[in-house]
């Protein structure tokens, strides 16, 4: 397996981060006296400075990533360091605050920091997990390839429908026409399927009417056709229905595949929409936190 961001440079930044945390812990423990540990002791200030510098450096990744001619380390190395040093901040910031929680701007800063870090954890998960899932889902085919296959299958279904009775025809075609792919960002992210189809096709004054019912995951139309299988009216019908069923099931698989791919791709991007704004909020809170502590002096 290739080296990923966690195993980069034999996890060098993991060891650096562990060392940093141990050093900070030692500083934390060195606090004594009447007041004990606090952000306001010399050690507390030192730990706070370390944490603030780390936060600034971590947010600088956004700029480094886009300095395409920069030769300061590799971007992959920066990302690896970002992950481990960012994680170490949970402890360093906690040492700085001596685990004190309150309802004030200081705790807000601390809370935002944790939120940024945990949204990052989700990002790491998506980066490590989803590329492989996506790759095996696509199995070497591009989205365009898949869409072309989908089109072929659909045309095959339509061709068979032409030889079936009108109820079957209308129902199956309605399921195809009312197949739902994509949709809003939310639909994609949660893999929602709003597909529908006609049901109970009946004729009134020579005009076909029908109820519209949900057909999530194309399951209902498959069951509809399967149900018709043993009740065929003409001698060729079972054969045609079998072909139709097989195409519908292939289509179902393909749609699942496409929906899942879109969902995974959306998830690999969505976390940044939390991670980045939260980071900016953190920077603002951090600034207020630092300025306000000067008033305690």
């Amino acid at each position, binding site marked *: 397996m290739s080296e*990923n961001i966690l195993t980069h440079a034999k996890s060098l930044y993991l060891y650096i981060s562990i060392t940093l945390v141990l050093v900070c812990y030692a500083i934390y423990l060195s606090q004594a006296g009447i007041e004990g540990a606090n952000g306001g002791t010399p050690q507390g200030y030192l730990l706070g400075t370390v944490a603030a510098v780390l936060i600034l450096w971590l947010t600088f990744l956004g700029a480094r990533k886009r300095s395409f001619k920069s030769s300061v380390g590799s*971007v992959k190395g920066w990302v690896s360091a970002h992950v481990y040093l960012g994680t170490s901040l949970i402890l360093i910031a906690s040492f700085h605050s001596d685990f004190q929680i309150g309802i004030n701007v200081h705790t807000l800063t601390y809370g935002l920091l944790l939120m940024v870090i945990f949204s990052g954890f989700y990002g790491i998960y998506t980066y490590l997990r989803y*590329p492989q899932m996506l790759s*095996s889902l696509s199995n070497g085919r591009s989205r365009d390839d898949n869409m072309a296959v989908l089109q072929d299958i659909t045309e095959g279904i339509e061709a068979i429908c032409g030889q079936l009775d009108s109820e079957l025809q209308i129902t199956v075609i309605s399921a195809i026409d009312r197949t739902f792919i994509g949709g809003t960002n939310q639909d994609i992210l949660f893999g929602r399927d709003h597909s529908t189809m006609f049901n109970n096709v009946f004729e009134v004054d020579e005009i076909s009417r029908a109820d519209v019912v949900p057909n999530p995951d194309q399951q209902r139309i498959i069951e509809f056709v399967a149900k018709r299988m043993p009740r065929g009216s003409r001698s060729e019908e079972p054969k045609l229905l079998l072909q139709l069923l097989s195409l519908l099931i292939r289509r179902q698989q393909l749609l699942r595949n496409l929906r899942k791919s879109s969902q995974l791709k959306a998830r690999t991007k969505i976390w940044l929409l939390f991670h980045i704004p939260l980071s900016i909020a953190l920077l603002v809170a951090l600034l207020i936190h630092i300025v306000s502590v000067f008033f305690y002096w």
Partner: protein
Amino acid sequence: MPKANHYYLAIIGAGPAGLSAAGRAAWYAAQGNAPDSSYILVEGSAGLANTIFNYQKGKFVMAEPGYLMLRSDLSFQAGSREDILSSWESSAKSVEMNIRSDAKVSGIERDADKFTIQFTEAEDITADFVVLAIGSEGNPRPLGVPGQYLPLVQYTLVDAAEYSNETIVVVGAGDSAIENALALAKQNQVYILNRRSEFSRAKEGNLDAILKAANNKNVSLSCYYNTVVEKVEAIPASVDESEDPQYQIFLNTGEGQENFPVNRIVARLGSVPARKFLESIGIEFASENIRSNPVLDERYESSVPGLFVIGSLAGYPLIKQGMNQGHDVVSFIFGDLIEPVEYGLLEKQFQYLPFALTVDQTTRLFRQRIPMFNEMNLLQFRELIIESNLMVCYQEEEVYQRESQRARGMQSEADKSESKDTKIRRSGEYIFRQGSFGGSFFTIIKGEVALTLKQTGRQIAVLGRGQFFGESGLLSGQPRSCDAVAVGDCILVETPRRTMIKLMNSNDQIAEGIDLIFRLRALQTKIAPKIAIDELVEIGVKTEVRRIRAGETLYEPDDVGNSLFIVRSGSITLSHVNHEGKTVVVGQFQAGAVIGEMALMGDRQRHHLAVASVLTEIIEVEEEEFFQLVENDSSGIEKLQRDVSEKYVQQNTMDAQPDVGQAMQFFMDQGLGEATNTLVIDESLCVSCDFCEKACAETHGGVSRLDRKSGSSFAQLHVPVACRHCQQPHCMKDCPPDAIHRKGSGEVFIDSTCIGCGNCMNNCPYGVIRLAYDAPSKPSILSWMLFGDGDGAGEVENYEPDSKALAKGKKAVKCDACMSLATGPACVSACPTGAAKRLSQNQYLSYLQEH
């Protein structure tokens, strides 16, 4: 023959070369010292300079090569297509040039004292001399049936929207026929005629489109398969001038005959190569090679006395060259033996030499000393020297300092950009180094050059006057196989690869000579290192070079092997069926490798299937020659045996890792067998952030040269559409201004002299080159991050080029592997997850094993 139809000189083709020739002929006529009806310019199309006319509107035409002066009665400088055409038209008008347009030549015959030129639709003319300047594209292939020249038959279609409500028959099954038929079907009833039962020659997109259109009742287009045209006739009784068709077409549909009235026939049957036409006149070509040029003497006269060939048909594709030749050839014909314009260029080049000789004397000296140069005609020799760089090496520091100062002085006097550099070097400096890329070819005029292997320091050869080196890089596309160092004072000619290729295509003796030396040196380095080259000749001539197309088999399992092979260019994949019945790749060998030697040094039976993964050349050494070599020099055998043992281990290791073998097969299927530097993306790490593309755009003026999403994938490996820097770059084949180069470190790049012709784009089998306008400048990344200005990093989709970019025109853009960046390729260094890697061939195996 009436005198009115006889001319002293007939110039055929009113392109730049023909126009310039006619311009000079008009000048002679105006001087009054030419015979009556002295010349005629004949053109098959309606206007002048048809090729340039067919350029897209407003296209900027370059005036390359810059170092060459224009010598013509017509003016020509870089500018828009319209400016150039109108300047030529007004020149032609002002000298009252004698032009016959719309006159398609159907044949040229020569009898005792004159040429007869036949036309498809006009009376013959005769001429004492003929200048052919018809370009190299050839003429459209005619229908070849009675009625083929009737006015309703046309061979091009400029604008389909011009025609409506007509019945139109399109003949042909290629892409242009399909595209025309589809465009015409919008407003007309169209029938497309295919001689075969399917459209197999067409691109997939066109194939789909035509089949869909044919099956769609709403599109007025239908296909005839297995159908040929029998004849086209005018409808006899058609007297009224109405819009009714006045012709009818007779078809043989395979099921019987059919005929119907038709307004228009568009025949798109490809083109007849100009070569066939020339051969029908009796003009000889240098070789069977399709790219070879007609045999011409230094005055452009062909093997048919009195018939001259100039311009791109003669192998000179640039406008300025053609115009100069037009001027010169007419001067020759009218009896002025002027020096060609290139003469001045030679003078410039020779002035840096330590000789006090005239151009003629130096030329003679060069040709005397170098057997190879003697094989060339003067025209070829002149071109070779002009396109080459001279290199002078001095042993003594004092002389070196003095001469390089003299050269610098002269170079600053002359316009530096317009003259070729003559390199002044110290002896003992490297001429080239082992491992660096380079296809240029060196000929020794004076002195000696030593070739040495880097690893062992062993000297392979010391070459002297008249000998040459660098053929390995030239023929194999591989990096240089040794170091080359000048010994003592010496003078060299360094000829660029493309000049050599052109020369080899047009001169069989030279091609064979270089080829033999390549084989001898291969035998020496691979098998018998201690035998001198001269002594290898006897055995060497018995070896054979074979070309194997991609996918063709070199040998099969169970064949009895009685020869070994040295891969000269391309690559060979070895595979076999393993114990599970699966086909497994067990080895991949690129240029320089020896394969099949196991049969001569172990089991005689072949165990593998050897297939060329790209177009490959191999040198075959038969058993007898091999053992003869080994007997005479046993010093190489040990290494060969050691390599065989290593190969057995490696092949069996591969056998035990079928996944690696399959992935290797995938690489080979993607054409990576001819690559030197390929972008590969590990899909298990790629998060689709597109930073590779963004980085590419940001480091290359806002235009990305790679397409991550496209390309092929297999087993979590993705080969995106990005340049692989091929061993023998297809893109370099046909670049008119010679704008594509390869750096010593291997990067193939396009320089600023690109004229945007698109040849490289069409020649690239991997689709990695495109034509693009310069992208407008964007707000900085910082102001995007802080204030949201612009679109951030990366190429802006469908960006609007500014007026400057529009004036410059579209230029070819491709990956240059970020040769100017210290950090290496930006696509790789910008990848946040390490998914993007660039690999050379010898890294494939370890990469795949790790993967």
